[in-house]
């Protein structure tokens, strides 16, 4: 049976337009359907239990610009769609059901890759977090999946008993429990939404490549703006300390000294951020060692040492200051690189714990040692040595 397509939904029947789909109070809803519907909704379809929004499979320039913003800024923290059942094309009771997270970038990836197909998209409430991260913390999980199956009355809207989940949702979902409690058997689709069409054309089968998580240079590069941004959110603390320390003279804090003598440390700080949050992620497989802390330290010492060498700073600068900086900044770069474990796709909890166990004491003692040399520098700078 084909479901009927509509331009304007009956508000009482549409789970998207009504504010509270299950409370029965939607008649009082004052917004018209057009006002309330997000821009990617192109119409509605009258399914068994309500009027479900039909979504566009072509991303608008607005969708694309929002994705760029989400990659660059805290905009991603509020980049979500409403959970529920959406239609792609003209689905019926036999159409596939694809499950995704309510992070809009995830939702956009799914709907755009289903272009030309008739299917359902079931969006889980993952608090606006992508599938893999949400699965890791359990919000893309068995409980929410069962809840959403029952709230969308999925069993009434489709005749079959299969739902297709993204493979990366598997860490949060106990497929056996889902089958026992809802009757729906879970099929794991490909890792990447872009392979969904191929998966359907293959007769709902993934080849080995579709099951593997990659971490190519583009994947890594695209993550660096957020990494850099998160470091810069704290950079002013570092800058303040540097300006105070370098401005400090026996006569009080001299602002001219802060700038003239502190610029070296500020520039070095920027270089450490670059080494840890950009250079290390981008050249990850080419930097020796497996531990991220070591990779970041290597990147830091090579870049920083190189810059000092080629600018002639090794000979022109105070020796204590050089030693202090050579200890501090590669370690800072190492610490920043270690943060990238969270964005990487292959680090394990046990591994990160081991890295931190070794690296943390090194960071603390390095910082103390660096500070001691900085004091030597200050004393010699004041002419007391």
């Amino acid at each position, binding site marked *: 049976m084909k479901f009927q397509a509509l331009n304007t939904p009956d508000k009482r029947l549409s789970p998207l337009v009504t504010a509270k789909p299950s409370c029965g109070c939607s008649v009082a809803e004052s917004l018209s359907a057009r006002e309330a519907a997000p821009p990617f909704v192109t119409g509605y379809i009258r399914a068994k239990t309500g009027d479900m929004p039909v979504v566009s499979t072509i991303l608008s320039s607005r969708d694309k610009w929002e994705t760029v913003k989400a990659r660059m800024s805290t905009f991603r923290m509020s980049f979500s769609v409403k959970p529920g059942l959406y239609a792609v094309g003209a689905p019926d009771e036999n159409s596939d059901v694809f499950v995704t997270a309510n992070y809009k970038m995830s939702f956009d990836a799914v709907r755009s890759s289903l272009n030309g197909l008739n299917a359902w998209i079931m969006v889980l409430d993952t608090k606006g977090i992508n599938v893999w991260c949400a699965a*890791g913390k359990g919000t893309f999980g068995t409980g929410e999946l069962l809840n959403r199956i029952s709230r969308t009355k999925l069993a009434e809207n489709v005749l079959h008993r299969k739902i297709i989940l993204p493979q990366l949702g*598997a860490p949060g979902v106990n497929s056996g429990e889902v089958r026992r409690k809802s009757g729906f058997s879970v099929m794991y689709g490909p890792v990447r939404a872009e392979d969904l069409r191929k998966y359907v054309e293959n007769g709902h089968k993934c080849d080995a490549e579709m099951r593997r998580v990659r971490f190519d240079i583009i994947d890594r590069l695209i993550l660096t703006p957020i990494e850099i941004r998160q470091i810069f959110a704290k950079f002013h603390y570092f800058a303040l300390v540097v300006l105070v320390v370098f401005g400090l003279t026996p006569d009080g804090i001299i602002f001219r000294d802060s700038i003239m003598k502190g610029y070296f440390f500020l520039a070095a700080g920027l270089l450490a951020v670059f080494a840890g949050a950009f250079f290390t992620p981008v050249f990850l497989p080419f930097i020796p060692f497996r531990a991220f802390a070591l990779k970041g330290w290597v990147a830091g010492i090579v870049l920083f040492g190189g810059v000092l060498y080629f600018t002639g700073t090794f000979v022109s600068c105070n020796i204590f200051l050089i030693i202090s900086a050579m200890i501090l900044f590669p370690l800072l770069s190492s610490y920043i690189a270690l943060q990238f474990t969270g964005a990487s796709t292959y680090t394990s909890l046990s591994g990160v714990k081991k890295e931190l166990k070794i690296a943390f004491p090194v960071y603390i003692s390095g910082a103390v040692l660096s500070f001691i040399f900085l004091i030597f520098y200050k004393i010699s700078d004041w002419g007391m040595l």
Partner: protein
Amino acid sequence: MTYLKNITTLQVFPDKCTGCGRCMEVCPHAVFKLEDKKVTITDKDRCMECGACEKNCDFGAISVKAGVGCATAVINGMIRGTEPDCGCDGTSGACC
């Protein structure tokens, strides 16, 4: 790319395995293969302890101490004395 050697907590119990292949389906790093209809580990060091295999094994044939390999989360957990927490639920802006 592989992470640290000999660190994963992943274990398989072939006597419980029915050879259904579900773990091979969910593993993002192709850690498993079937040998004589029983699961074996091909390369332990590729495991990232995501926990998908254990969670989706109906027969209890796999165990792993699952978690997210994120330094920020581990440090947050150390500071607050809790389990690793990446702070994604709050407004901190820092998330995996």
